[in-house]
């Protein structure tokens, strides 16, 4: 039995080899006739870069990023970071500061036309103010340390010198990377707390048509948040999510992104961030210098009754309708301790 099996195997192998040789012989003959041209099938960089923006291959090293041999887009990213971003950032931020200065000196701050009533109504609870200031302080830290990456070498380095600037930038880098987390928490809390009151309504169109609070003679009706505030809310939410997601990609480099995606993440992060800073500058102006009586809403949480009447009349009516608010008006509240 064993002998027969071995015999059969031998015959089969002989037939197989014979077939292979028969098939291969024309090919062998052909190759011997032609001259060997190593260039015929060889790759070259011009051809490869036309097919794909990066040249990649295989490598005997553990670091898989090293598989990318050439990525000329690095120069494009350099152009974005050193030219486009510098101009965009400078125009947007200096432009916004200019606009706000013009608003302050030409239009002037929006005063309470009825003066102060001396009576207060609660606008933001302690937890709401905590959420605001958690986000605000982390935003300021992130903004300054982030702008330092782009503009520090132009503005700060010549002033304090290379060694001090590097030491500061090192600390700023870690501050930026870790302050990101309270900021992201703040964004989540803002979304949870104020989502309902920021859903756009018909009344917002009317508010926008009347020019919002910027035309002093008019006080368009508004609920808890007017169309401008709703705009800030949605910008904060949208930009906050965009910088958070792109920032997480940068915090964990090359975990899920390759070199091209890392560059895109940085571009999104930087562009959204400088626009975000400009919008928040406007938000800070309107909430402090620009509108009399607005800042106390986030400071003590209570606003003057006349301020509420002028800026958020519908919300005030709702509040007054509630027993809680009514009680408080019957017994004027003392100045809160905070």
């Amino acid at each position, binding site marked *: 039995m064993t002998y027969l099996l071995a015999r059969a195997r031998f015959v089969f192998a002989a037939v197989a080899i014979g077939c292979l040789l028969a098939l291969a012989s024309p090919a062998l003959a052909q190759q011997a006739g032609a001259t060997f041209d190593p260039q015929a099938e060889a790759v070259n960089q011009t051809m490869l870069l036309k097919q794909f923006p990066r040249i990649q291959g295989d*490598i005997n090293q553990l670091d898989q990023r090293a598989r990318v041999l050439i*990525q000329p887009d690095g120069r494009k990213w350099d152009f974005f970071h050193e030219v486009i971003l510098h101009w965009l950032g400078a125009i947007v931020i200096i432009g916004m500061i200019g606009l706000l200065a013009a608003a302050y000196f030409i239009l002037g701050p929006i005063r309470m036309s009825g003066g102060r009533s001396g009576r207060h109504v609660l606008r933001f609870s302690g937890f709401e103010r905590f959420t605001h200031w958690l986000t605000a302080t982390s935003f300021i830290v992130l903004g300054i340390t982030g702008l330092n990456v782009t503009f520090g070498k132009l503005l700060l380095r010549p002033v304090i010198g290379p060694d001090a600037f*590097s030491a500061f930038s090192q600390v700023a880098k*870690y501050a930026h990377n870790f302050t990101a987390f309270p900021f992201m928490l703040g964004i989540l809390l803002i979304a949870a707390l104020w989502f309902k009151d920021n859903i756009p309504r018909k009344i917002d169109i009317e508010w926008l048509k009347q020019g919002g609070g910027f035309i002093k003679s008019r006080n368009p009706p508004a609920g808890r948040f007017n169309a401008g505030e709703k705009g800030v809310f949605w910008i904060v939410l949208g930009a906050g999510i965009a910088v958070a997601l792109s920032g997480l990609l940068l915090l964990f480099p090359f975990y899920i992104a390759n070199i091209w995606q890392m560059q895109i993440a940085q571009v999104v992060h930087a562009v959204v961030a400088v626009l975000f800073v400009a919008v928040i500058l406007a938000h800070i102006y309107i909430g402090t210098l620009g509108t009399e009586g607005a800042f106390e809403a986030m400071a003590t949480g209570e606003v003057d009754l006349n301020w509420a009447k002028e800026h958020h009349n519908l919300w005030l009516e709702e509040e007054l309708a509630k027993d809680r608010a009514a009680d408080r008006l019957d017994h004027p509240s003392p100045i809160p301790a905070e």
Partner: protein
Amino acid sequence: MARMKFLCDADRCIECNACVTACKNENQVPWGLNRRRVVTINDGRPGERSVSMACMHCTDSPCASVCPVKCIFSTADGVVLHSKDLCIGCGYCFYACPFGAPQYPRVGNFGSRGKMDKCTFCAGGGGSEVPGSSEEYAKYGANRMLHGELPLCAEMCSTKSLLAGDSDVIAQIYKERVITRGYGSGAWGWTTAYREDVKV
């Protein structure tokens, strides 16, 4: 002044990785880092080519341009050096580098990459250390240029595929090879690094 460049003749590279080893040993490059690597395109398929790559010491180097602390610069010989004292490990040079040259001691979560390390053309470091000193050696590796020697990777290349030296000289050597043997897959990376190619 010479303009120092690398040129990898891919038609000669046999992917032996001797350049990688020579570099690691000569410069005592820390564990896990490789200043030079060999990438094989179309590995095992027709038209396969291997290219040895490290910092190309670019003209208008994008790494130096994007560095937020300006710690990277070009020397008079066109060698791109950096100061590890000033580097903050932000990783931007890696995003800008067309050749994946910058290396970092750690993975880099939360920006903890450590000081950037890269090929110095065996020309020491760009810090304040005395050229040729043991301090410079510990931080940046060998300073062969100080003694008129070229990078060891190219000097040890078994097939003389990797050329290092003055731009005009190595371009001329490559041109002669291409003319003699009748083919050449080009000076890899030159158009990106130096905005010029070797015309044959």
